[in-house]
C-alpha cells in the first residue's frame, strides 16, 4: 500500500492542514487587531480619569529606557506625567506559581509629595483567583504621603497584619502579595530608588 494512502498519513495531513490554516488566519487577524502600547496607555488613562487626557512619557521600558527592577519585589515599566500627576505601570512579583500582576497606579500631586489614590489592574499572569481582589482591596493602598511612607520604611505587606492598611484576602494570598509588591515599587520609585 502506498504511503500517502495509509490512514495515519491522512490523519497527520488533516491535522497539519487545519493547524496551518488556523495559524495563518490567527496571524493575519492578530496583526489587524493588534492593540498598541499607546492605545493600552490611553485606555488606562480613560479608565482612571474617566476621560481622555494628554500625557508625556517620563519612563518607557518598551522604548529606549531601561526597566527599573527592585530585587524580588517587582519592576516599574512605565511612568507618565498626566496633568501633573504621575501614572505608573508596575509589575509585582511573587504571585501564584511565581506569576506576576501588572497594575496602573495613579500618584496624584499632593503639595511637595505624591498620594496614591487610584489603582486598576492591567494584567495578571497565572493568577486564577484575581477576581477575589475587588475594588475594596485596591482602595486599601490609598496613601496620602508616599515620601513619608518611604522614609518610615512603611511598605505594604500582604502577610504582616500589623502593616499599614492591611487588607486581608482569603484564598488569594499569592495574588495579593504580587499586587502589594507592585504598589511597593511605586513607593520605592517615589522615595528616590531609581
Amino acid at each position, binding site marked *: 500500500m502506498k504511503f500517502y494512502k495509509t*490512514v495515519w498519513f*491522512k*490523519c497527520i495531513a*488533516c*491535522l497539519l492542514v*487545519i*493547524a496551518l490554516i*488556523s495559524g495563518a*488566519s*490567527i496571524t493575519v*487577524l*492578530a496583526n489587524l*487587531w*493588534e*492593540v498598541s502600547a499607546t492605545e493600552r496607555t490611553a*485606555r488606562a488613562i480613560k479608565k482612571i480619569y474617566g476621560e481622555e487626557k494628554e500625557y508625556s512619557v517620563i519612563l518607557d521600558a518598551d522604548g529606549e529606557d531601561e526597566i527599573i527592577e527592585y530585587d524580588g519585589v517587582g519592576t516599574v515599566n512605565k511612568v507618565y506625567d498626566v496633568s501633573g500627576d504621575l501614572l505608573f505601570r508596575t509589575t509585582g512579583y511573587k504571585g501564584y506559581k511565581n506569576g506576576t500582576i501588572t497594575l496602573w497606579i495613579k500618584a496624584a500631586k499632593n503639595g511637595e509629595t505624591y498620594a496614591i489614590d487610584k489603582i486598576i*489592574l492591567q494584567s495578571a499572569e497565572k493568577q*486564577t483567583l*484575581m*477576581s477575589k481582589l475587588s475594588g475594596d482591596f485596591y482602595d486599601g493602598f490609598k496613601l496620602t504621603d508616599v515620601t513619608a511612607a518611604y522614609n518610615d520604611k512603611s511598605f505594604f505587606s500582604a502577610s504582616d497584619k500589623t502593616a499599614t492598611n492591611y487588607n486581608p484576602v482569603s484564598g488569594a494570598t499569592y495574588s495579593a502579595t504580587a499586587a502589594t509588591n507592585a504598589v511597593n515599587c511605586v513607593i520605592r520609585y517615589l522615595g528616590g530608588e531609581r
Partner: protein
Amino acid sequence: MKTNFKKIAKDGIISSNPTLKLVLGTCPTLALTTAAMNGIGMGLAVTFVLICSNILISLLRKAIPKQVRIPAFILIIATFVTIVRLALDYYLPDIYESLGLYLPLIVVNCIILARAESFASKNGVLASAADGLFMGIGFTLALTTMGAVREILGAGAIFGYKLWDFSIGFFSSSAGAFFTYAIFIVLFALITDSIAEKTKLAEKNNNGDFTKPIEEAK
C-alpha cells in the same frame, strides 16, 4: 432530509438547554454570573464560536478521519476562540477584561465540543449553523437571567445601574452562585415539565388533532 428548524430551536432553548437541562458549561455559568452584562458577553462569545465551529466541522465532516476527529475539532474551536479574544480585546476591552480567564477557557467548554461531536459532525451546514445559534441563544439567555438575578440580589443593581442600596452579599459569592444555579435548574425543570405535561394531555384528548385548543379538548 428536510431540516426541522423548529425542533432545533426548541431543543437549543428549552428541551436541551445546555445550561439548565444538560448542565454543561457550568464553570463560566457559576463564575461569571455575578453581573448580567458578563452573561451577555460570555453568551455571545460562545454563540459565535458555536456557530462558526459547527459550520466548519459540518463542512469538513467527510474530510476529517474519525481517528483524529476530536483533536481536529479542538483545533477548529481553539482558532475561533482566539479570534473572539482578539476581536473583544480590540473592540470591547471592558467586556474582554471582565470575562478574563474564562474567555480562553471557552476552548474546553463542553457545550461546543458536545455539539461538534453529536450534531455538526453528522448533519448538514444549515442545520449545524442553526443548532449553534439556538444552543448559543439558550446558553446566553440562561447566563443573562442568572446574572441579572444575582446582580439585583447581590449588588442591588442591574446592568451596572444601581437600583437600591439593599443587597445580600451571599448572592455575589461562590456559594450564592451554586444556590442560584440550583434554584434555576429546579424552576426550569418544573416549568418545562408542566408545559410538556399539558401538551401531552392536549394531544391525548384531541386524539391527535393538534388544532383544537386545550380548553376545548378538556
